[in-house]
């Protein structure tokens, strides 16, 4: 076991930071208030808030497509609205650090020299944004290939910043035949007070998971896990009963984790759940406490969940594993209790975890790493990639590549980033591509297109509009 920072010393350090911040924050110059008031006096104000009225039936809004031929590859840049940053037209600037298999090295501790890898340019594509005056804007949170095209889900963040009312949010769906031109499906009644966080395609049906927060009279809306299904991406029905908060596809059907949220005195409890069709779910384990961030399933029926522990080790990194119908067992590397385990996936028979080590080096490197194991029951994970000064938020297994996404912190700005590896000892970074530039951009999900490109969705902070707009990033060229 490693030494762990005690809560007492953590509290002392945070108290020190608090004193420091209050002591050193500068006072405003005397002229500043008068200067601001002179500028605002007589200045026009915007028109008032427009109340949002829900359409009776789903409205399908086709993006206004601005199509520009790009190069000889025939790729199109499309946008439904002007974007703050032009899609990259220059050469690929991929460069990479990389990890190498390092035996049984302690997670978070290995270091490997950079290896250059070439990568294609990416194009940022604006998705139709229905948020209008909604201050929080819109986020695209997941995407899936379905019926020869692509379906993305997300939410209008109406609760953001000017309200704590979660019932103001609404879930939205985008559909695309090619990953470039997207149609917005908004105003779907069952998504009126919802957020759509995740989508999978299973058994010829789409299944979206998220949360629903029905308005309450005289009290705040309460957000609860919710699940919806659709056969076409346009008409959706909510699944009734005990539904999981997150889902994935296992070797014998759908699996999920049902979570009962905590109150002030108890930890969140989780149950492993299974379903053959996404409509009827059954809890298949005893409950265990913890804050689960993600889960993945392997063909042999081994499941891994990552997140943070609770009870006696609050907020420390935790990894659980189980076989179907078995109990969950925590088996976490003990040398990295402060790591943030964001995401887990299965690739080529191994489990991979995207890790924010929370152990920055003096030069700012080695914050984001990827752990791997072929046997989660041993609790032995090895570092297979040091991705440098990056905050990793997700990792995805595609047909022939492993993709880690997050934000690049290497130049003091938080730009979206994606790292791609086809051979696990080589990782290429694409964040230097201008398509990924911009503070508070985040990549939420990545899938392969049927033409061998990578397609990702997320959001982009439009500093002119002052809010988030939903976007997709897509590779210009097919991957070789």
């Amino acid at each position, binding site marked *: 076991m490693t030494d762990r920072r005690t809560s007492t010393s953590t509290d002392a350090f945070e108290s020190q930071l608090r004193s420091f*911040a209050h*002591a050193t924050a500068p006072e405003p110059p005397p002229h500043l208030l008068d200067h601001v*008031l002179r500028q605002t*006096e007589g200045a026009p104000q915007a028109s*008032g808030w427009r109340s949002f009225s829900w359409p009776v039936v789903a409205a399908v809004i086709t993006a206004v497509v601005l199509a520009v031929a790009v190069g000889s590859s025939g790729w199109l840049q499309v946008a439904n609205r002007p974007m703050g940053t032009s899609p990259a037209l220059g050469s690929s600037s991929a460069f990479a650090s990389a990890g190498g298999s390092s035996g049984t090295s302690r997670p978070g501790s290995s270091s490997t020299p950079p290896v250059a890898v070439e990568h294609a340019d990416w194009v940022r594509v604006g998705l139709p944004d229905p948020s209008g005056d909604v201050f929080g804007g819109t986020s695209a949170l997941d995407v899936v290939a379905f019926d020869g095209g692509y379906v993305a889900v997300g939410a209008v963040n109406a609760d953001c910043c*000017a309200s704590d009312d979660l019932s103001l949010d609404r879930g939205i769906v985008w559909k695309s035949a090619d990953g470039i031109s997207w149609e917005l499906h908004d105003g779907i009644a069952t998504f009126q007070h919802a957020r759509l966080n995740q989508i999978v395609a299973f058994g010829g049906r789409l299944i979206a998971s998220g949360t629903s927060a029905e308005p309450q009279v005289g009290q705040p809306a309460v957000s609860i896990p919710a699940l919806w299904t659709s056969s076409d991406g346009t008409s959706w029905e909510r699944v009734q009963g005990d539904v999981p908060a997150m889902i994935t596809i296992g070797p014998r059907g759908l699996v999920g984790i049902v979570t009962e949220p905590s109150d002030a005195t108890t930890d969140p409890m989780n149950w492993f759940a299974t379903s053959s069709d996404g409509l009827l779910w059954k809890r298949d384990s005893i409950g265990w406490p913890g804050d689960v961030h993600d889960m993945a399933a392997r063909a042999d029926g081994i499941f891994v969940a990552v997140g943070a522990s609770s009870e006696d080790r609050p907020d420390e990194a935790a990894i659980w594993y189980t076989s179907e119908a078995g109990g969950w067992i925590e088996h976490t590397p003990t040398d990295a209790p402060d790591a943030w385990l964001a995401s887990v996936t299965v690739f080529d028979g191994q489990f991979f975890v995207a890790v924010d080590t929370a152990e920055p080096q003096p030069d700012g490197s080695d914050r984001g790493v990827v752990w791997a194991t072929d046997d989660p029951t041993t609790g032995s994970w090895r570092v297979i990639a040091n991705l440098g000064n990056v905050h990793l938020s997700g990792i995805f297994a595609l047909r022939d590549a492993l993709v880690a996404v997050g934000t690049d912190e290497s130049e003091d700005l938080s730009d979206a980033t994606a790292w791609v590896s086809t051979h696990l000892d080589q990782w290429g970074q694409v964040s230097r591509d201008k398509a990924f530039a911009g503070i508070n951009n*985040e990549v939420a999900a990545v899938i392969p297109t049927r033409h061998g490109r990578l397609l990702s969705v997320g959001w982009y902070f439009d500093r002119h509009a002052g809010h988030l707009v939903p976007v997709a990033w897509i590779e210009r060229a097919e991957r070789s």
Partner: protein
Amino acid sequence: MERELVERAMQGDHNAFSELAAASIGRLYGTAGLILRNHAEAEDAVQECLLRAWRDLPRLRQPDRFEAWLRRLLVNACNDAMRRSGAHRSDIELDYASALGLSDSAASVANRDELERGFARLTDADRTVIALRFYLDLSLADIAQALDVPLGTAKARLSRAIRAMQAELAAVGRGATEGRPA
């Protein structure tokens, strides 16, 4: 009281807005100063924040959330400033000798100069979340709103920023021990 002022300002009452601005400008400037480490940029960010607040106040749906909304505007203005000016902002000279409230026991963990040098070497993103948490004393939920990120992301960023600060302090300490400039 504040709600009434906000509602009047939403209706175009500039006197009400003046009261709101006067009450907020100290915290706004302190926050911007900590994040940007540059007086001129902090001043610009606060101006941009308040100008936008005046312009968009009629669109504020929940007057009770005025403060949270204002913080969000400020963070956005600071983000703009970071993008405009790049990574080097260091013209704020702070008086650590009078760093208030640092007890002897706290100073034993890291001296005041080390704290400042460590803080100055953080990334903008780390300084932002530190300022929101430890200067404005925001909850994780409020930090998430100010940054416009999910709660889990806010939690991860705060955890990372604290660790980064600890690492920077360790680096500063090593530099001092070895006689090198940190």
